């Protein structure tokens, strides 16, 4: 069971004069799959960035707890895994080098077995020593899942997780989401009905425009 908790209270975001959403309340306490939905421009990605601490809300607050203690923003990156189309990995490095550099910067250790398992699981084991610039968009998306899972995060954020993936890739993603949700919190932001169908509850951001 996850002892991680996320609470977003009265979160609003304004870019210039444009209100993205207002007074959004969102919380996840138990392990499971939570969805965030809304049409294009409704602020799904912005909301994800706010609840992961990447950007600040205009109003409201987001608090993360682990074992009942508040996680300081300086340490938050160690608890989260994030996959999104706008997460870019380094083209000049190989897939393995990318993961090694990220892990060293995070200050975490992982076993070779875990790394090999993830590369096998996402079907890019044979290409793991190729430069990322030679990867297709679908392969890059698969590598992003390895990037998000290698440090065994307590909460996972997936923004449009099945974009650029073929059917087998989508199956792998759904399988991963279900497995991870047994022990951790998984939050999916998407418009795809198939992505939202596996969520136990869905936050509709369009309702927070006014």
């Amino acid at each position, binding site marked *: 069971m996850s002892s991680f908790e996320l609470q977003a209270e009265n979160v609003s975001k304004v870019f210039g004069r444009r209100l993205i959403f207002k007074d959004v309340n969102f919380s996840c306490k138990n392990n499971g799959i939570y969805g965030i939905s809304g049409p294009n421009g409704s602020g799904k990605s912005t909301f994800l960035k706010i609840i992961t601490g990447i950007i600040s809300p205009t109003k409201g607050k987001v608090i993360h707890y682990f074992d009942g203690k508040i996680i300081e923003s300086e340490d938050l990156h160690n608890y989260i895994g994030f996959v999104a189309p706008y997460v870019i990995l380094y083209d000049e490095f190989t897939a393995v080098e990318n993961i090694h550099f990220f892990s*060293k*910067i995070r200050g975490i250790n992982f076993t070779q077995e875990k790394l090999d398992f993830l590369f096998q699981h996402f079907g890019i084991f044979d290409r793991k020593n190729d430069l990322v610039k030679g990867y297709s968009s679908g392969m890059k998306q698969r590598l992003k899942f390895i990037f998000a899972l290698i440090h065994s995060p307590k909460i996972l954020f997936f923004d449009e997780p099945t974009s650029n993936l073929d059917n087998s890739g989508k199956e792998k993603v759904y399988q991963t989401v279900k497995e991870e949700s047994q022990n951790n919190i998984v939050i999916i932001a998407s418009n795809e009905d198939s992505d939202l169908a596996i969520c136990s509850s869905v936050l509709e951001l369009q309702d927070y425009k006014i």
Partner: protein
Amino acid sequence: MSSYALFKKDLASELRTRYAINSLVMFIVVTISVILFSIGNEKISDFLSGGLFWVVIFFSAMSGLSRAFVSEEERGTTLTLQLIASPTTIFSGKLLFNLILVFAMNIVIALLYSALFEAFVIKNLSLFLYAFILGNIGIAIASTLIASIIAKASSKGTLYPVLSFPILLPLMLTLIDLTKQAMDTTTFSSSYVELAILGCYDVVMIAVSFMLFDFIWKD
């Protein structure tokens, strides 16, 4: 350790992409060549050559040091860094990379400059070395902070020297003054005030950088 890991990532990336090194080397060669051609057969004074030395360093720094953050922004990897490390780690790692780059760049400039300009003769080497080391540290800290500010702007190339000039001006003026003293027969003890200014500049800039970077990095 995380900062050092980020530095190693940046170094490996730089060695593969030559993002900053190529432009720095070209800029150093072109700037020194332009000064050599513009002087021609004229004999310039010792002190003018000392001033020109820091002008070359200032403009070379402007051409290459912004890359630490601009390259991340241009490739879209800023968000990835935000996901793997704290702002303090990011700034420390980038600062370490810029420190190495500044020292390497300025040692090359100093060697080239000494070889090509007869008038550039340092009589008090220890004073010059102190000024050189403290000056390089100041340039690296200030340019790393400014690079993080301008990285998200649309006109980065223009904004970087414009923002850097007022911040680096007190440092440059002190460095030019100290170089002049090192080229003269000034003793080390009579330059304490200028050295103290350099030391204070470095301390203030590093403190301000770590205080501000969290806000710059997040929004």
